[in-house]
């Protein structure tokens, strides 16, 4: 019968309207009186009596609740995580970056006993503005020193701010993404919990002791 298809369309849209929105309102969600009361775990009446000021605000539609969508722990994000203690300055990441946006300048290190095996990193610039977050730099890092980050809201006002310098990498709190790091996944680590990982716990293998390094050094000679 004619009109049945049109009627079906009306039914589907009405069902969707009753089910309510599925979108996430980043970064916070406006809730009404009922929503705010539910967030606080009170009944709306309790809420009105106990916190009348907030209740009026909520009834006027100004109460907000933080709303964030849960991200996967493997999310390949913007702020790279770098562990200087693991990095040898081999520049594999720079070599294999498809876009060539990583710049590394190293100098031989005097401070470490195994002089010559570990280098000082003088420059480690990652130009986020051209990065496509493929994660190949992380994939090829033989010492698990470079990790993808999990942030995504690092908008800046100038292009030059998009270049991550070695100092920024040194000072930032490391919450590495578990992308291409199964060893992190095994420990059920979630970077979005905000918990940071020290350099000793992110590698596939233990850092060799100085003695071991000495031995290997001699052996390979």
């Amino acid at each position, binding site marked *: *019968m*004619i*009109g049945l298809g*049109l009627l079906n*369309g*009306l039914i*589907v*849209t*009405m069902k*969707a*309207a009753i*089910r*309510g*929105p*599925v*979108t996430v*309102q980043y970064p916070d969600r*406006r809730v*009404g009186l009922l929503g705010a009361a539910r967030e606080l775990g009170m009944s709306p009446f309790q809420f009105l009596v106990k916190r009348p000021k907030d209740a009026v605000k909520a009834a*006027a*539609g*100004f109460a907000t609740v933080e709303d964030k969508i849960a991200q996967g722990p493997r999310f390949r994000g913007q702020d790279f995580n770098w562990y200087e203690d693991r990095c040898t300055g081999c520049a594999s990441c720079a070599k294999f970056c498809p876009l060539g946006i990583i710049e590394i300048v190293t100098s031989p290190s005097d401070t470490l006993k195994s002089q010559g095996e570990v280098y000082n990193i003088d420059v480690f610039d990652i130009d986020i503005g051209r990065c496509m977050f493929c994660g190949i730099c992380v994939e090829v890092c033989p010492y698990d020193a470079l990790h993808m980050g999990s942030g995504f809201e690092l908008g800046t006002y100038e292009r030059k701010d998009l270049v991550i310098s070695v100092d920024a990498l040194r000072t930032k709190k490391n919450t590495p993404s578990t992308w291409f790091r199964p060893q992190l996944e095994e420990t059920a680590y979630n970077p979005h919990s905000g918990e940071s990982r020290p350099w000793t716990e992110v590698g596939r293998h233990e850092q060799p002791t100085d003695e071991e390094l000495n031995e290997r050094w001699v052996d390979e000679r």
Partner: protein
Amino acid sequence: MGTNFLDNSFFRNIYCNLSKSDDIRCSGGGWLGDGILPAGFEWLAFLITAVVMAMVLINLVLGSVLIFIWAERRLLGRFQSRSGPNRWGPYGTLTPVADAIKTMFKEDIVPTAADRWVFNAAPIVMMVPATMVLAVIPWGTGTFLADLNIGILFIIAITSLSTFAIVMAGWGSQNRYAMFGAMRAVAMLISYEIPMALSLLGVLMLAGSLSLVSVVNAQDVPFILVQPLGFLVFFIASIAEINRAPFDVAEAESELGAGYHSDYSGMKFGLFLNAEFMATILSAAVIVAVFLSGGRGWSFIPSQGWFIIKMIPVLFFIVWTRAAWPRMRIDQILTFAWKGLIILAFINVAVSAILSFVWPDPTMRELWFMVAINFGVLIVSVMAVGAWFGPQGASAPNMSHGDALPRPRPAGQPSGGDS
């Protein structure tokens, strides 16, 4: 004289405060006592009252445009599993205000090739019919600007004016997309005026008058029940007249960008938008007045309140269809008007004529008989017309499971180079 605006206590008070009228409804004057104007100046009192009324009504409608924009966006959001605007003000109610401010401060661009006079005049012309229709709508008991004895004819005549505005916009822009939109709009608006006018004939037969106030007064049973077919045709035709989905071919953003107002920006665009939303509200008002017994209802709510309450479901349905249905194609829209709606309207006219011949002055009981007969006619005629030129039902694809290779087919002949 029947009814006039002096039935409304608010306007009566204004009038009676001003004039020393000997109108019986003014006995005892207004709130402030007797009229302040000397005798012989009743016309001035009348004029001032009319201007006040016009200001009140126009501003109320303009304000309701803002509310309607907000409500439509919220509702569309809900229908689409979104939440809609919710940042500015409580529940996003200030979003249309923010939009209006933004629109006002936008740069007003006139394309170099545009016909400046026509281009600039089009938005103003667009606003004319929307504001003029306002005059004859009985918003409640005594709440109207003019009780024209040709009210319905006036509405049909005045709404055609928007065709001029659309053609002016399309032509003046010197833009092919705009021209496409304008041409489509003209074809559609002209086609849909015929079923729109025809569908009202049944109502006129029942009411015996062209005046909207009389039509409202005649509705002891709302005419949507007595004239369901007429209502259906009028509703569809008025959605088409106001260029809304599924008849929004004049704008057709997926085909024409924005149709006839592609090149407009700033407040000129705002005027177009405003006129469209005003037209939507006013067509809902006309539907309420003609088919939903206007402001009549139980007396615990004032008649103006009833009028607005009855407008809400009409507007809701208009928004709902916009969310649910895609746009029709222009040639199908015209086919639909000429082959479908006009025939339905004629059936309605014929049935109404017969019925009003049988029952020239229907009692309540006879009215309900008419309701039953008309609903039968509605179902039968809609199904017949649908079967005549409506689309066939859907078919499902065949599923192939086996290892059959595609049927060998002869290779096709090349059809020449590209472009």
